[in-house]
């Protein structure tokens, strides 16, 4: 592997970063700013915000986050498997089928438990 391959990526980062900051600074220089108290308040339909607490949340969001994490790990395991399947052949295939089989149990459990429903 050659590290110089990543040089354009670095330059892309520098140029894109420079562009973003440049535009931000330009807008700061050009735009007038007349802040008032009411203008700087968070938006709420016509009146001042009642409180600054976080509104109540459905805990389902956390669950979605956790499940995403687990499935993401699973999918990442599929990547090296997919590119080398022509070499590992049937052995590799059944090894992965078994792995996915274990995880399908978890998936079915979640489905039956109703976790995947969003109501």
């Amino acid at each position, binding site marked *: 592997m050659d590290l110089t*391959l990543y040089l354009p*990526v670095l330059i892309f980062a520098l140029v894109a970063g420079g562009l973003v900051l440049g535009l931000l600074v*330009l807008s700061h220089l050009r735009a007038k700013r007349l802040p008032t108290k009411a203008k700087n308040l968070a*938006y709420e339909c016509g009146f001042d915000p009642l409180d600054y607490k976080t*509104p109540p949340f459905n805990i389902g969001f956390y669950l979605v986050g956790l499940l*995403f994490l687990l499935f993401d790990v699973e999918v990442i395991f599929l990547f090296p498997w997919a*590119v080398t399947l022509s070499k590992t052949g049937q052995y590799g295939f059944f090894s992965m089928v078994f792995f996915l089989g274990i995880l399908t149990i978890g998936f079915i459990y979640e489905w039956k438990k109703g976790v995947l429903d969003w*109501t």
Partner: protein
Amino acid sequence: MVLELFGRVALAIIFLLLLVAYLIYVERKIIAAIQRRKGPNIVGFFGLLQPFADALKLLHKETIVPSLSPKILFLLAPVLTFFFSFMAWAVIPIGAGYVFADISVGLLYLMALTSLSGYGILIAGWASQSTYALLGSLRSAAQMISYEISLSLVLVPVLLLSGSLNLTAIVEAQQNLWFIIPLFPMFVIFLISVFAETNRAPFDLPEAEAELVAGYHVEYTSMSFAFFFLAEYANMILMSAMATILFLGGWLSPCEGLIHLPGPVWFCLKISLVLFLFMWVRASFPRLRYDQLMRLGWKVLLPFSFAWVILTAGVVVLTQ
């Protein structure tokens, strides 16, 4: 040599920025045509200078930072979103050899940047300190991560057929047969996931104007707002480019007779086709409800693409 590279990268990014600006114009025109309106037609011929007018207007608008927001994080969020959507272009090959960084794990690089794009939205929602923004950003983040799984699962059959993570190699593996033909259901799932991933209609719940007043960008004005807006369209072009590379044969010409047309032209034509699909879908479909959206992601797309991965793998192993 490094300086020359700098110049080329800067040119590419400016070109991309122009492309994004005109994509917004084209979208307005197309949707206007579908709805039998005229669309922007005042500034310049056929309204062709509209993007510049919009850009100048946004540049001169006042930047408002809500009084309770952490200022750095508030300004950082749109910058991050914009930055990530442009970084991805470093690995996209638009023709044989026309690529900045031909790294061997190009697809993983793209996936990494896609997974990072959730940060801009989450930070924006949190830093706004506003109920609407927070609700919008949470919805959006949950939606993005739900569809990211099916998006990455769809890539697996492509990898099975191409045997490489390098984007150039993936395109070259399609010399004889574009992957859209054997993997058509995957292409459809890819498109659906991409619509959800870029928060486009019919999956634009985070921005649902009627209930969330534009979701996580409700507090943003001026250039910060423009960054979110540009990033959304830049991501659309990026995802169209991904669809082209993975399924539509990249820069390869569709038949022997047209081989003289240069590769990048084909690439642009195919991207335009996918982009048109984005707009057509936006004009034609109503927005989904949140529970329908989650059900589609977890209960339909996920099991189906898993099954298809196993099926493709089985076929690959058997036909060896």
